[in-house]
């Protein structure tokens, strides 16, 4: 039986790397919290091409670049923008409540 998704506290907004990607672990999941110019977005942190942790890559405010092969993703939608990345990131629905980033998992 599938467990119903619930909103869970992930990290305080004050603890995020400002304007960057912050790695957060939640119950064995490696997540990346992106503080983008358009708000906060959360995705599974591993690159869909080479499985490197995207939080260690270059972030320009909207796009995250893999630190291993420089594949490119839109951090807001997860869309793969440049080779060798082809498969989109797995995004996680997120919101900010009372200064906390929450995810629906």
């Amino acid at each position: 039986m599938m467990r119903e998704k619930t909103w869970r506290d992930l990290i305080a907004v004050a603890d995020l790397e400002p304007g960057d990607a912050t790695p957060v672990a939640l119950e064995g999941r490696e997540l990346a919290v992106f503080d983008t110019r358009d708000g906060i977005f959360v995705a599974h942190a591993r690159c869909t091409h080479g499985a490197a942790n995207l939080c260690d890559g270059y972030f320009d405010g909207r796009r995250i670049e893999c630190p291993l092969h420089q594949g490119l993703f839109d951090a807001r939608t997860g869309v793969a923008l440049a080779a060798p990345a082809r498969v989109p990131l797995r995004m996680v629905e997120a919101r900010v409540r009372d200064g906390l980033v929450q995810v629906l998992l």
Partner: protein
Amino acid sequence: MQVLTPITQALEDGALTRRELKALMARSDRPALMRLLAWVMTLGVTGGLVWLAQDSWLIWLAMLLHGVVLVHHFSLQHECCHYTAFRTRWLNDVIGNICGFVILLPNRFFRYEHCDHHTWTQLQGKDPEMIELPVGLGKYLWYLSSVPYWKAKFSELFRHVAGRLTEAELRFLPKEEHATVFWEARLMAAAYLAIFGFCFATGWWGPVWYWWLPVALGEPVMRAIRMTEHVGRPQVRDMTENTRSNLVSWPMRFLCWNMNYHAEHHYASSVPFHALPKLHAKLNGYIHVEPRGYFGAHLDILRQLTGRAPRADAQVPPA
């Protein structure tokens, strides 16, 4: 799949902080544009020397010097292939393709091949760019002659023009990219043929004297430099062991776009060329550095292949 990138390892080991890493990764168009301007001026000077020496035997020396600069288009192409030369991403594609055309290295194909080199650095049978430690002095000189390199490059081009890939290439090229690689090779071959045809029709052989012959003369220098990056280092995954950084003079750093800091580059390939000296200072003692530069690296290689030092490939752990 659990993949620990070298830079993630360095962060976990405390070699540098995340803030420091992110500051080093900052992108800019300006350093590359400034260096590109100096680059074009350097090409103008060395090309001018070829022109001045055209009625003398000195033309061969001038072409060698010009060729050494020309073959270093590889270094700029390499930086572009990592999208670290310019902040503006499409500029990396444009300049990378131009560089690749100068040195017969199709840019899209190189991008994929080089990705696999970063995944499987120095692992026998997996690293598609691996230069093996020669079995002896003869093979060492044969590699430096560049004959095997050009043979491989022309075979690669003809194979891709014909729409074929090797088993090794199929491992790193997704099927969606096959057509791109084939058409890239065809366009490149057509352009070379068109230039040759133009020379033949007009009787003006400038590209031969200012481009192709100098590249052929300069390539042994590039082969020697490429050998210093990994050859003679242990064939293991550990980046603190399998890659060599070389401390070289500023003219060589200029030509190679700071890629003498090769171990630093493998640690954090998202750090642009202009920040590599700073990364070098941060990773001091954490990676393998050859203080005697390219010559020191070759002394190390020669000691191994003449039996005066243990060969790095003598004990290869199972992949």
